[in-house]
């Protein structure tokens, strides 16, 4: 958010205060309203008491502010026997997130690099297979993967969940990096070959430093995806490593128990803080990174 008010670059199209300009701002304002309303509903609900929520005025401003729901969600909401709120899973989520993001981006970028710049035989087939996978509901993979993982002895481990996120991140990550590397001037790659750099040297010294904007995009996508994941963490991470979303689900999704919507909403907002921070903090990088490659090829 630091860049919220930076100066607008002087461009070729000067500011015209005209009807069109007003229309433009009106359009943007209405759109912003549309996009923010659900967030508003969630925040407002989290600040109300349950009685007020039951009264049913969803869009109304709270008559009486209370942050009780937030403290309860973080500290003391019960999920089963544990009444420590969702903070319990926070560090588990971090422990899953960091290696998963790093490994999945590493494998994805390396694969994209090998498929784009090195004309390996069958590159199109490999890439096509990955793209098809991107369309399969990943839930159907869960059962066979459980069997494969338990045969490999990595079921219910931190390592296992990192591998899982790498598996499911591979199509998108490969797509991003392949398109990016393919859009670079081919002479650069040739020059490095003539300079005698090998496969990994070119990757590490030339390509990866150039791909920083793309890495940022990949990071944003993976951080959100992995942080928000629930079912994979639940099935593969193991009891000791259950991510924060499992606690969130425990709070918001009980079938027969009573529901405290204010706590639900607060818990959701708390869980979403990490991806939200990533988005608000790096929105500019995101567009720049996409501009750097995802829209080419």
């Amino acid at each position, binding site marked *: 958010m630091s860049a919220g008010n930076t100066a607008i670059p002087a461009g070729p199209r000067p500011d015209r205060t005209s009807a069109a300009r007003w229309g433009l701002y009106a359009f943007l304002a209405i759109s912003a309203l549309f996009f923010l309303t659900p967030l508003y509903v969630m925040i407002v609900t989290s600040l109300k008491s349950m009685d007020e929520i039951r009264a049913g005025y969803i869009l109304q401003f709270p008559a009486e502010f209370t942050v009780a729901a937030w403290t309860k969600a973080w500290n003391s909401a*019960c*999920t089963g*026997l*544990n009444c420590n709120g969702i903070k319990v899973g926070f560090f588990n989520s971090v422990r899953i997130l960091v290696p998963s993001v790093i490994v999945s981006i590493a494998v994805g970028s390396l694969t994209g690099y090998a498929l784009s710049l090195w004309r390996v035989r069958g590159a199109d087939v490999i890439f096509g297979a990955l793209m098809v996978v991107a369309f399969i509901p990943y839930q159907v993979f869960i059962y066979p993967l459980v069997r494969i993982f*338990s045969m490999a002895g990595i079921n219910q481990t931190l390592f296992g969940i990192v591998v899982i996120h790498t598996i499911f991140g591979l199509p998108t990550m490969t797509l991003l990096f392949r398109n990016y590397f393919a859009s670079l001037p081919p002479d650069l790659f040739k020059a490095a070959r003539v300079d005698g750099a090998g496969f990994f040297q070119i990757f590490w010294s030339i390509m990866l430093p150039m791909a920083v904007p793309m890495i940022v995009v990949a990071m944003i996508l993976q951080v959100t995806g992995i942080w928000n994941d629930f079912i994979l963490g639940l099935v593969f991470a193991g009891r000791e490593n259950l991510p924060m979303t499992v606690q969130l*689900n425990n709070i918001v999704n*009980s079938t027969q128990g*009573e529901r405290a919507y204010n706590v639900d909403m607060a818990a959701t907002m708390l869980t979403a803080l990490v991806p939200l921070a990533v988005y608000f903090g790096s929105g500019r990088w995101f567009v720049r990174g996409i501009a750097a490659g995802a829209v080419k090829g």
Partner: protein
Amino acid sequence: MIARSIRVVVPAALALAAGMGSAGAQQRAEVIHWWTSGGESAAVRVFAEQFTKAGGQWVDTAIAGGANARTAAINRTVGGDPPTAMQFNTGKQFDDLVEANLLADVDALARQQNWKAILPEAISAAVTRNGKYFAVPVNIHGQNWIWYNKAVLEKVGASEPKNWDEAIAILEKIKAAGLIPLAFSGQKNWERDLFNTVMLDKAGPAVWNGIYAQRSEAAARSADFRAAVDTFAKLRSYVDAGSPGRNWNDATALVIQGKAGMQVMGDWAKGEFAAAGKTAGKDFGCTLFGSKGGGYVMGGDVFAFPKQKDAAKSGAQLTLAKVMLEPDTQILFAQKKGSIPVRTDLDVSSLDICAQRASKMIQDKSQQVASVQMLAPPAMNGAIEDLVSQFWNGNAMSHDQFVDKMVAILKGSY
């Protein structure tokens, strides 16, 4: 795990709260269940505390949503790292695990405690496979309760209805008074429960068992079943526009606030009334319809025990099963959960009047009705759920078509 087991023994209660820590000598049981809300947590705490008293150590793995919890538990069992105990709904959900030889039986304990005598017959059957007990039932939830706001009924000059015909007359009056007659949560499972509630009253246990247990075409084509369909269709005009997709507890809130007259829901709805400070018999009433005999649809929960490599864990499983069925545990648990004890031989005077009424009912064998989860596999129940939902929402399907489609499901490979 190994590092964990050499940890120093910590005071059990503390270990309990933290959900970790262990000791070799202690019986350690990891239990996967889906009781995560406030009331449910309080109930499961009863089990944990009783187990601790018995010298065990409860390791809690709570995962909200039955399907989520079962997915995790089954995948862990298949993957070779089973929990000590896992929750199922009383019924057929663990059939495949028994067939795959992944569950340990508790037959010895059952004989010793004479489960056959103390459990209702349907419940006993629901946990028995191939003549052996494979799970311990822990509670009974009535699925076909009718809850009503006493003040609303008084206002329209009505008293507690005895069957659906009376109820519909009252609903009509409430409608005339400008209130929502039937508080409804339009999600598939509640739509099915509403239909079942109507069907039990209109068609009786014979058709009920005919449909769900025997898959009988004759039952589906019977006049009684047809009457149930007709009555069910009538109820469409007593729900409000906001009902589709609504959560059940929001529907209960309408009854609590006096915005709606009545609701059909399982006995877990009591938790919502209690949370709002309402008392059964004073602020709200509860009743059951069973014009043709059977009146109480018994659902509930069981715990099953995956086979263990470690003998110590098998010991913990036995202790757990024993503790869960002990009279004290049963009563305490039912109080918190809103259910009734699974044993028929207990003093239930400490429970609320609705629970007392239910407990009295299941003393009479003819009033016991097995829930559809006990009678039919999940796939068939699911298909019926889809059908009922399709029928309930919109008038596109004729009553004849509904019957035909029901027959097709019964004959199908679900």
